[in-house]
């Protein structure tokens, strides 16, 4: 399995053919903004760390940006000297055989550690322990936080082995806090199983304090997210994301955040009622898609400050984000 760029064999294909646009707005995989859930996650993690808890769990709907938020936070929190923990990220994989060995093997491959096929799972676990200890010692922090994404892909045996990993670190007088992130609906299966008497240990360790996370749920949050496009610049010291795409006729100091009220209105009146049972918030994936379309296609091609036109643009952008599949209108 090739996971890291450095393991890829040299390609014969010229790089410029496979390179993507450098501007983050055109390259959504690199587009990271401060989502409202990030603050909530950080606040909750800090509480957990204060108590040196063994774990917690974040659950949220699909496409709300859980993984991106966590990946971003891992880098941010590790760089923050005021935070007393070292953060490490693993993502569970859908495996053909849901065994403990396979889980550790997958963790090893994520860490770019080569493992032999016949290696027993304990050896693979040791590799992970040594890796975490190395990073922890180098970071000079006091606790380790292990974010394990895609909780719904794990089963109870695998959680048991993760609990024993926690015990190993406890013997070393290090708190290994495991924070699971999962999609709410499918994760309920594993959480329900862990509530059974024989698996209460797992529930107690990891799922006693569950925290629900959401996308955008208020106009204020929406405004904050839109302001990110008025704040972030590409390249550094260059124009803001908004300025870069805005039509030349637009006023110089026009801010994308000024559309927050209108966008929230469109979302709540036209889409929110249709999303009942599917989405309980404006997911970050859809929000990013909406703003990208708005900037790249509409506000880039012509300038208007007409409210109805803007409303139509926003509505079309939200529809094209596929938050509500029936809402896409095919233009002739």
């Amino acid at each position, binding site marked *: 399995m090739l996971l890291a760029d*450095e*393991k890829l064999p040299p390609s014969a294909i010229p790089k410029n053919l496979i390179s993507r646009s450098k501007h983050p707005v055109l390259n959504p995989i690199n587009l990271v903004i401060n989502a409202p859930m990030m603050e909530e996650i950080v606040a909750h993690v800090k509480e957990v760390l204060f108590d040196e808890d063994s774990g917690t769990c974040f659950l949220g709907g699909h496409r709300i940006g859980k993984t991106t938020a966590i990946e971003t936070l891992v880098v941010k929190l590790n760089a923050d000297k005021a935070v007393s923990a070292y953060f490490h990220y693993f993502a569970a994989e859908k495996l053909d055989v849901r065994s403990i060995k396979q889980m550790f093997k997958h963790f090893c491959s994520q860490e770019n550690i*080569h493992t*032999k096929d016949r290696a027993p799972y304990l050896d693979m676990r040791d590799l992970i322990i040594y890796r975490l200890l190395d*990073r922890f010692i180098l970071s000079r922090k006091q606790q380790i936080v292990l974010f394990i994404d895609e909780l719904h892909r794990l089963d109870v045996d695998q959680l048991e082995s993760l609990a024993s990993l926690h015990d190993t670190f406890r013997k070393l007088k290090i708190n290994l806090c495991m924070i699971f992130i999962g999609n709410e609906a499918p994760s309920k299966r594993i959480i329900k199983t862990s509530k059974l008497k024989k698996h209460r240990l797992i529930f107690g360790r990891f799922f006693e304090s569950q925290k629900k996370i959401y996308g955008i749920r208020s106009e204020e949050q929406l405004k904050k997210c839109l302001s990110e496009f008025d704040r972030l610049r590409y390249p550094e010291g260059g124009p803001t994301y908004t300025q870069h795409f805005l039509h030349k006729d637009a006023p110089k100091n026009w801010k994308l955040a000024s559309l927050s009220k209108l966008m929230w209105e469109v979302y709540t009146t036209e889409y929110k009622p249709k999303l009942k049972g599917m989405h309980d918030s404006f997911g970050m994936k859809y929000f990013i898609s909406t703003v990208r379309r708005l900037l790249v296609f509409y506000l880039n091609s012509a300038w208007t400050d007409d409210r109805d036109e803007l409303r139509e643009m926003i509505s079309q952008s939200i529809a094209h984000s596929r938050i509500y599949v029936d809402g896409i209108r095919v233009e002739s």
Partner: protein
Amino acid sequence: MNLGLAIAKPGESRLGLSLRLWRVNRISWNLDRRSISDRVTEELAHGFKNSLLNIDSSEVGLDAINALEHHHFPEIARAKLPSYLRKTKRVRNCVACAYSGYHSLYFDLPWLEKCPVHKRSLVERCPECRKYWPGPDDVQLRNCDCCGIREKATAKINLALFNSKIYDSVLRLDQFFSERISLCQSNYKHHQNVHDRRTPGYSKTLLYPSVLAAHKYDKYQEWCDLLPIESRIHPCIKKKFRANTDFKVNTLKYITEETRDKMSKVRKKVYNRALQELEELAGHELLSCEKRTGYGNVDYCYHCHIANQLSTSFYRYAVSSDAYGRVYKGRLFSYKLSKIGKISYSDSLLSYLSHHRSTFETEHYEIPERIRYKLYELDLISCIKQLAIQVRYGHEYGHNSSIFSSIDIHDHPVLHNQFFHNYYSFIVENSYVHLYYPKEYEQFSFDTPLTWLAMTECF
């Protein structure tokens, strides 16, 4: 690649580092003949990119790991041992340390006889497979529970030593040796007439901790109490003089009358001091205990024997060959004491220093006259010590004075293969030259000659 920082211990040698890396990467690496340095270099080049670990270093292999650890933990004291220190012939290890996958760089240096952690003797062979301890590149080839890594890796993770204090004694050695001194090469012309077989590397190595303590640490007695090599740290005398490089090595092969007189005065001073001390130790007038033992042989007490031999050496030609003219190499008598100051010398060649700044640049420093004569005096004392050792040895084996010349030290269980040599440590620093030598050099130590031998023995 894992670094195994959690099981890193102070004072790790290259073998120790190799054992550690193997232990934490055993499942990832194949047990083939590839060297550990190649493995590490490859891992660093291909699969080891991480913001925490990336450092700009030209080091490769195990040195890169050391550089990386030093970069991240600059506050941890690390030993800086100079390359000129002589190591033991074979790798030595403590069996308990070997089982825990540890080898210290101090184990291969002669300052330690026992492991400071487990208090067990350092041995040259693995007790299980009876082979010599492996090198850093072949630990993976050993199929042995003690000296290899194959068996150990299957054992469950054992981090019992993490945060442990049991290696503190080695940590203190690291702290002590984190300072480093650079010694000058000294050239003494008269030495070639004092000692036949010179091996300054041994003395240099044995005295290194003493000189380091004297030069770098003011309160060196405190270090003596803390370090597991306290018996190897001797109090040193310090002499300081201005570094004079405006000095040309003179190759003239004659000695001036003035120098000859001064050297003669030094010899007389040393001789009289030795006799005085011997008389005090003997408790009677020297040579008054003469006993005839038949066949015209005369026997004395130990101290009078020394006095007798001393007068022979100083004022008559000391026998260094037998009646058939065969020269006895390796005999203590062959030091030709009588020749000192009486054969070809030039004043300037008596002694000077060479300081190698780089491969192509060597600076010479003059040793002032007062220091030169001091060194001459110390060398004379060392000759008298050798004489005393020989007499002591003769007494042990029942030789009488007339046949001391035929005693061969190669027969002696302790003295065989030993080379006795005063070593003077010169350090050039801040336009001054610092000379250090053990206090012991100034004493005759007739009754405790082994203290001096311990400073000069080979290993």
